[in-house]
């Protein structure tokens, strides 16, 4: 009986190590943006680019469902019930702070550009300020009368805080097909 417990402990321990290892691998695996190009006809944002951080990531529409926010390991989430980028209101984007996603977001500075690709349009925002907030400081998601983009990710000890970059619309460029 004792041996059974030993094997069980070893087995579960190894499984937990494997799960932990998978989660670590997930943080570093490369994210392919090319997959999003085929969705160019959509009216939703498909890609977000931060040139100053050399970040270019797919955008995945997300919802608030069953008392939690949908998140993705394949890009940045766009809360689809908030304002469409380029329109009046606060467009909310968020993503994991993994090295392959928004791990370097805390390096963004005032004046840096955040570019959202939406169909054939590139909507360019300029960062006006950054902040670190607690998870319950949900006022950052308030709607606004200006054209704003809010991008946030986890930060701090054991991801207990949120780093928030707030940007306002600078320009919209339409690209030829």
């Amino acid at each position, binding site marked *: 009986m004792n041996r059974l417990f030993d094997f069980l402990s070893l087995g579960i321990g190894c499984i937990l*190590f494997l*799960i932990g290892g998978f989660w670590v691998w997930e943080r570093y695996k490369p994210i392919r943006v090319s997959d999003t190009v085929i969705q160019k006809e959509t009216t939703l944002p498909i890609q977000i680019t931060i040139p100053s951080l050399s970040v270019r990531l797919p955008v995945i529409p997300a919802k608030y469902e069953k*008392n939690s926010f949908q998140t993705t390991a394949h890009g940045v989430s766009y*809360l689809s*019930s908030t304002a469409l980028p380029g329109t009046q209101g606060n467009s909310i984007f968020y993503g994991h702070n993994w090295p392959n996603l928004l791990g370097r977001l805390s390096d963004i500075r005032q004046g840096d550009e955040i570019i959202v690709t939406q169909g054939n349009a590139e909507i360019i925002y300029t960062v006006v300020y950054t902040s670190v907030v607690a*998870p319950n400081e949900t006022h950052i*998601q308030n709607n606004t009368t200006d054209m704003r983009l809010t991008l946030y990710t986890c930060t701090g000890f054991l991801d207990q805080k949120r780093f928030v970059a707030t940007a306002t619309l600078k320009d919209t460029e339409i690209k030829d097909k």
Partner: protein
Amino acid sequence: MKIKSLVFSIIMFIVFFGVVQPVYALTIPTFPSCFSPQGTVKVTYSEGTHGIAGKTENYTGKDAVYTLTDSTLMQCYCPSEGSGIQTNWWSIPSLSDPDVKVLENQGWIYIPNGSLWGLKDTPYVAYNTEYECNSCGIGGAEVLGQGIGGDVLGLATTGNLPEIAGAFIIGFILILFGVRKRLFTQSA
């Protein structure tokens, strides 16, 4: 000739009073959906009991009011479960009785004095519709207010370091436990 005139008169009477509908100088404004509210936040409540125009019962949950224009507001009520209620508020100070009748026939509720609802001291009409505030989207009441789902839920969880640390620590302890017991058993 007299008969012709009579028939013509009757037809004209029917056409004029029977077919032609009265035209009222009322243009109903458009309202955005509480699913993606617009305007500026007038007031928000993360919880509490709220009143809904035209309904006698009290409603418990989140509530937010947004000012859209000088004459229009939007109230987004969201209970903890189920559908929310969007109330479109439209201030019309000079509303005639026929106008009220027309609007009431379209489902609007006449509120003689908005001050009882924390609004301007003028007559309002209100229109209720249901919207999904709990199934998807951040929905209604707290979207522009103090937060989505209140302070308990907070912002999205965008990191998993605690889970990773937990998996490795618990895994390590379990492996150590198993190995130590095996070693202890063998040496004994």
